[in-house]
């Protein structure tokens, strides 16, 4: 795993989180342990652990030929959610997360003519952008009077949604031409956008009236189209499905 270009998005979001929070806090009133009104929206910055299924298509090829296992595509993730309350117990959530794995490998079955391993690196980057509806199994807080809102301590939730996922599967290094057994050096890439569906379950723990800790497990279902006949992975699909467990800090405003 490495933190590279895709992490810039998360870093940008984190910077947004930090920069937005103070003015938001200044503008929306709060008392000692309560808000003056129910929060209209929340902003969450989260990190987690992405576990792609890494099965089928290019993954089958790679895992069969190379010393790659399913766990080699696991990666840390960073992301954020912006949620708007549309009903007392329902939010519309716009979120993204990005994860990127980097795994070194060599051919299982082949070495070069000097008995040296034939090595390569495999990168997988996934960045889903998902809009979902989140439903809480209980009130997110309690309004007392008309000017005091006290958050609930613990609220579980589920969500479903859909969107797109930006992906890139890239292998670079030395490869074996199975027809000629020539070893050649190359960088092969499959990238694009794919439709995605996501289901999730989690819970929020109130730290105080402003911040909550959000824990969530998400399952993403998405499959990248097979590359065009002239593409680097011609005919192979890229299975982008997987599970992501995350924990985040949520700001109510």
């Amino acid at each position, binding site marked *: 795993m490495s933190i590279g270009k895709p992490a810039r998005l998360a870093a940008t979001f984190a910077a947004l989180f930090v920069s937005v929070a103070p003015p938001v806090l200044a*503008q*929306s*009133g709060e*008392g*000692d*342990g*309560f808000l*003056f*009104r129910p929060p209209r929206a929340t902003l969450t910055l989260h990190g987690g652990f992405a576990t792609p299924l890494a099965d089928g298509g290019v993954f089958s090829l790679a895992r069969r030929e190379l010393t790659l296992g399913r766990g080699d595509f696991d990666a840390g993730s960073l992301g954020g959610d912006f949620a708007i309350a549309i009903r007392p117990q329902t939010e519309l959530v716009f979120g993204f997360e990005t994860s990127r794995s980097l795994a070194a490998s060599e051919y299982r079955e082949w070495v070069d003519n000097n008995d040296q391993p034939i090595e390569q690196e495999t990168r997988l980057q996934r960045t889903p952008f998902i809009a979902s509806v989140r439903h809480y199994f209980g009130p997110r807080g309690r309004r*007392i*009077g*008309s*000017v*005091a809102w*006290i958050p609930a301590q613990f609220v579980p939730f589920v969500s479903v949604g859909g969107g797109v996922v930006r992906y890139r599967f890239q292998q670079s290094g030395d490869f074996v031409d199975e027809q000629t057994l020539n070893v050649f050096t190359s960088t092969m890439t499959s990238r694009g956008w794919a439709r995605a569906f996501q289901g999730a379950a989690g819970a929020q723990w109130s730290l105080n*009236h402003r911040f909550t800790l959000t824990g969530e497990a998400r399952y993403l279902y998405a499959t990248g189209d097979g590359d065009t006949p002239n593409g680097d992975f011609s005919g192979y699909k890229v299975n982008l499905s997987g599970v992501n467990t995350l924990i985040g800090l949520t700001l109510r405003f």
Partner: protein
Amino acid sequence: MRIRLQLTIAFAALGVASPSAAQVPDVSPGIQFAGCWTPADGIGTRARTCVVPSNGTLMLFNVDRDGKNSESTLRLDGEKTPLDSEGCSGWEQARLTTDGERLIVDGEVTCGTDPKQRVQTAFTITPAGYFLQTSGKGFGMIPNAGLRLFVQVETYADIPAEIRTALSSYLAESERARMRIRDSKVSANDIVELDQMGVVAPVLDVVVAAAYPTDFIIDATGGAADPQRVEQTSGGGRSPSTLRHCPTSLWMNGYPMLTMYDWETMFMSAGYGSVYGAECPVGYLGYNRYSRYGYGNPYGYGYGYGPYGYGYQGGGYTVVVVRPVPTGGASSGGGRAVRGRGYTEDGATSGTTAQPRNSVGTGSSSTRAAGSSSGSSSSGSSGSSGGSSSGGEPRTAKPRSP
């Protein structure tokens, strides 16, 4: 140190021993309300109410210029107490919150053949040290609330001796309690407790707003500038002609939205002690946006259950709607300009605002700057009481020399 000096002066004027030598009782429930209070909202300013703790109760004395005219007792143990006065009967129940900072009085009253009404009043001390009385009533439900604001009297010289004596051992402790409570914000736990005590939303809203004076608008719009309406609904015994002569600037016309801080400031500068304040209720309304059984109907606050009791002078509540200050509406501090008032010191300084102390003098020696001279514009801050100021003079403005 300044407080101690003032208290010493106060006790000296009361003709009692100094606080250090006085028999200071154990902290009594509701001690923060002890003292003699006079309306700070311009409604019935000649009347005073003295609150004396006594064995888990609060003794309430209404005092007019002829001396004590009524008294009643408010039990603080949560027991229901029967009421029977002036054709009205029912019960009341007073409870202090766990921290003792707020007093909630519930009651049910039936007057004559009228339906039974539910009444609820919350007594609190505001961050500026005022005695805030928030009350709501209604048939079955309480749709809105009105507030009244009281300030410690300037002098105890004309308070009947028996009340002065009863109060003397409590004043220092009550001042300390108020100082402590002033800095104590209403917290989420307090709100939950008030809710569990059955405090209705309109009353609770005002209690919260009073604790966060710069964050809430106390909105009394909806005809606030209509003297005719006030005339019909005041029930306070003032003549229509007097009401009609009230300057419109006192009706909040032009600045219908005020923060709690503004209210307190305006009560200070325009109501209390002003040439108009004695007759003109500041922003008094007979307006009810929720129900026809509002303050403007014959069942309004004027009914009272007895001429005394915790309702003080009975009527005269200013019905308000509380809502948070709009986003971006809060001043960043220092000062701001308010339509109809011009430049004004910002509400962010509430809690340290100059206010009348329980200072004592002969009555004539104590002065207030705001509105005390006819027609002259003043700073609106209270003038220092003679002999009680230990610091430098506040910076004030004066006309430029020609």
